[in-house]
């Protein structure tokens, strides 16, 4: 998602960008495709996963997203971006792609996707989009994932891919939600972690915890990241995704802990931050 990346010494005599950037061969247009809703699975009271078959799907990398387009009777259209939750391995011949959509109460598109849409409906999308916030096992590890709320979706694609690839490098997910019930993929994450010594999943709950909860009960902060994250010396690949204040806080704390800003990739969403 367009945005920006940090670090650099622009006071150097030659700007870093003066190194000739390369461009892959001119890209083919990214066509709108007519997907078919195969299933709609409730994940939490506010989110569900749309299982789509996308004829002609060219494949994707874990972390990428699609643009979805809705068209009303009078031709009015709305578009939004949604992260892909499924791993590339799941696409198969049918072009199966899973999106997990959280319903935003005042949203224009998410209530439709998370409520109205049902199996058998068509859904227009195009993608995959994005080449920065992506990871696959060929990039190695360790892999540190930090999520807030539905920001776990693109990170889940990475973990599912890692599992499908047979394990991959050590990985840790630190996942912040208001309550445990709001955590997406909770059972699947527990199952993945139980069967994989190299994977740890750590929840933190910011609003309410079930009786007997012994885990973290606060927003993600530096002390928590220091305890959960791989040490900076191990040079983990770090992906942070969630609402803007959480991403700002986590990314800043990681840099303060000594992680290389160039290895901290972020994706932010949601009605956000202060009005500048």
């Amino acid at each position, binding site marked *: *998602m*367009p*945005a*920006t*990346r*940090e*670090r*650099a010494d*622009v*006071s150097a005599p030659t*700007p*870093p*960008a003066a190194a*000739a*950037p390369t*461009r*892959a061969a001119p*890209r*083919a*247009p*990214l*066509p709108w495709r*007519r997907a078919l809703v195969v299933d709609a699975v409730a994940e939490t009271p506010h989110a569900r996963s749309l299982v789509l078959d996308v004829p002609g799907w060219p494949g994707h990398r874990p972390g990428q997203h699609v643009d979805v*387009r*809705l*068209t*009303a*009777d009078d*031709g009015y*259209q*709305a*578009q*939004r*971006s949604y992260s892909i939750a499924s791993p590339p391995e799941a696409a198969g011949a049918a072009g199966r792609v899973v999106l997990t959509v959280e319903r935003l109460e005042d949203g*224009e598109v998410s209530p*439709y996707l998370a409520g*109205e849409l049902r199996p058998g*409906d*068509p859904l227009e999308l195009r993608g995959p*989009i994005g*080449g*920065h*916030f992506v990871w696959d096992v060929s990039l190695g590890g360790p892999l540190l994932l930090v999520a807030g709320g539905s920001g776990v979706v693109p990170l889940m694609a990475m973990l599912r891919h890692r599992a499908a690839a047979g394990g991959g490098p050590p990985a840790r997910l630190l996942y912040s939600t208001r309550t445990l019930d709001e955590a997406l993929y909770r059972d699947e994450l527990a199952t993945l972690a139980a069967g994989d010594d190299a994977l740890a999943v750590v929840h933190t709950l910011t609003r309410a915890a079930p009786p007997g909860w012994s885990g973290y009960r606060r927003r993600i902060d530096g002390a928590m990241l220091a305890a959960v994250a791989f040490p900076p010396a191990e040079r983990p690949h770090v992906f942070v995704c969630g609402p*803007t204040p959480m991403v*700002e806080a986590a*990314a*800043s704390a*990681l*840099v303060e802990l000594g992680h290389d800003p*160039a290895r*901290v990739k*972020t994706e*932010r969403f*949601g*009605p*956000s*931050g*202060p*009005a*500048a």
Partner: protein
Amino acid sequence: MTDPVPSRGFRGRRPAGDRRLPPGQYETHDFPVLSAGPTPRTPLDAWDFTVRGPDGAAARWSWAEFQALPRETPTVDIHCVTKWSKFGTTWEGVSVDTLLALAEARGVRRADYVLAVCDGDYTTNLTLADVTGGKAWVAFGYGGAPLEAAHGGPARLLVPHRYFWKSAKWVRGLQLGDDDRPGFWEQLGYHDRADPWTEQRYAGDP
């Protein structure tokens, strides 16, 4: 463009009043933050701004010198490729026309293309025409206050007639060149020109 597929039961919203949104955009009233990494923090005494010509000649301003340049306060609509648009944002900054004229007086030759260079190795490419003629600024104020770091402060490029990733945050210089060299997102499949009114979101879009 393929024929749109009707979405059963979708009504959607329309922008309030008579304001026009580019295709595929929706109006937001807050100011989303989108960045690919942690927010960099460059102290003002270490900040400078450089306009560099294709032959290497450069004009450079310290923060204090930059603040002394003639200022403008444009009120503009902005459009992010992630679909949000925000009407009537007010900025304070120096017009790129001003910077280029001052740079030219210091021997910096103009060229057809501009690469904005930022803290964090972020870059984005534009044409000279995109950033001249009163259409682009280096902005250090937003809404009557200093521009926050999360929104690109101390200074960001402001090119409101292009998708907002062209309005590079944490901008530190403009590199003029005779060739169009793709910037950060442009190398990752986003459009070189990025006109929101013709929906130039991704490479390959018309």
